């Protein structure tokens, strides 16, 4: 491979990382909110959320991306490529995160809530100081899996014509009729997921109570 393909691959990596981090910071809190609403919200909200989660988990992310970018313009909603990608990813990942958080929340024994009540700790403060750390501890491994999946799923935005790292690699492979760009892209993914796994492990170690 000619090294002149490198800059475009690096630019692709930048886009991949930008998309990944933006989706992560938005979908994690949104997922938590959805989980709280599903557990504590009124019945009709709960039903709505069940439906939303079903739709997000029951259809391919690729379809959701196409729906947002190619479909919505037909009803007058046009988004640029990148915002469209972020929007679809956030909705999709928030649904997965919400299910994980919800599982963690219902797993906390009722006795913990009763102890909070008897000690006069209000719900909000109790959640922050007592319940949520326990939820995080039990959900970190599954959250970690989803986060790693997200790194790899970002490659799907090539369908919108966004120049993320895999697309840049493919273009380079075509141009130089070479296998090397694919290997190089693979190594880049491994480096990114390696760093993230390492960080996740460190965080998990902090939750060894």
């Amino acid at each position, binding site marked *: 491979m000619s090294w002149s393909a490198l800059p475009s691959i690096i630019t692709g990596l930048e886009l991949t990382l930008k998309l990944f981090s933006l989706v992560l910071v938005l979908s994690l809190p949104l997922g938590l909110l959805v989980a709280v609403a599903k557990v504590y919200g009124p019945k009709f909200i709960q039903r709505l959320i069940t439906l939303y989660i079903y739709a997000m988990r029951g259809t391919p992310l690729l379809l959701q991306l196409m729906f947002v970018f190619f479909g919505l313009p037909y009803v007058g909603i046009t988004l640029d490529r990148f915002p469209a990608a972020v929007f679809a990813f956030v909705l999709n990942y928030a649904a997965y995160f919400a299910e994980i958080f919800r599982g963690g929340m219902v797993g906390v024994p009722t006795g913990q809530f009763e102890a909070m009540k008897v*000690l*006069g700790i*209000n719900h909000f403060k109790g959640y922050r100081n*007592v319940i949520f750390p*326990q939820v995080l501890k039990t959900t970190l491994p599954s959250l970690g899996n989803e986060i790693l999946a997200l790194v790899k799923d970002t490659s799907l935005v090539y369908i919108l014509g966004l120049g993320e790292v895999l697309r840049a690699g493919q273009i380079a492979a075509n141009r130089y009729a070479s296998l090397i760009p694919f290997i190089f892209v693979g190594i880049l993914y491994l480096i990114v997921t390696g760093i993230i796994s390492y960080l996740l492990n460190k965080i998990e170690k902090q939750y060894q*109570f």
Partner: protein
Amino acid sequence: MLVIEGLSKKMNGLDLIKDFSLTVQKKEIVSIVGESGSGKTTFIRLLNQLDKPDKGQIKLDNDRLFPGQDGHKSVNKNIGMVFQDFQLFPNLTVKENCTLSPLLNKSIRREEINLKADELLGKLDILDKQHSYPKELSGGQKQRVAIARALMLDPQIICLDEPTSALDYETADRFGELLKSVIKNDVGIVMITHDLRFAEKFSDRIISSELFLKPTSTL
């Protein structure tokens, strides 16, 4: 002084507690004994507002715990509870378990809260474990932390659900002595136990849970 009058509670359509009255004085230890399923735990849950009575009154000095002033929302910190399984917060150290509620509620200054926790943990002979997490403690140690945590709020009454069930004779006796020292600070204790020996040795009064269903003169 805790005054319970005409307390009633049905569970699954059956009377569990009916027209039951009881008074607990400061510095008094009252034990409740009786068959499994007779409503002992339910009774102290009613006192702590974890379950709602069907009928009756619960008063602590001049505070009405039930029916509440309006609705049933307010949490009364004058009455404390030690759960049978302690329910310590696993993500917090021993010391943090004790200080969390006072810190969040800003009842007194932070330094005072810390001092108070040290003093209580010292008294309960568990200060050396203050930085440990609950999972690193033995059953008896957890229990003492749970009591310290309840005492941090200066309750007038503490309810204990089968506090000696996990203890051997010797440890139970030490625990009994501990209760005796706890009540010196004008605290009353309502304790559920299966251990008659323990109840006879350490309580001022023993009440059978059969009385939950037999309206008698006020106890």
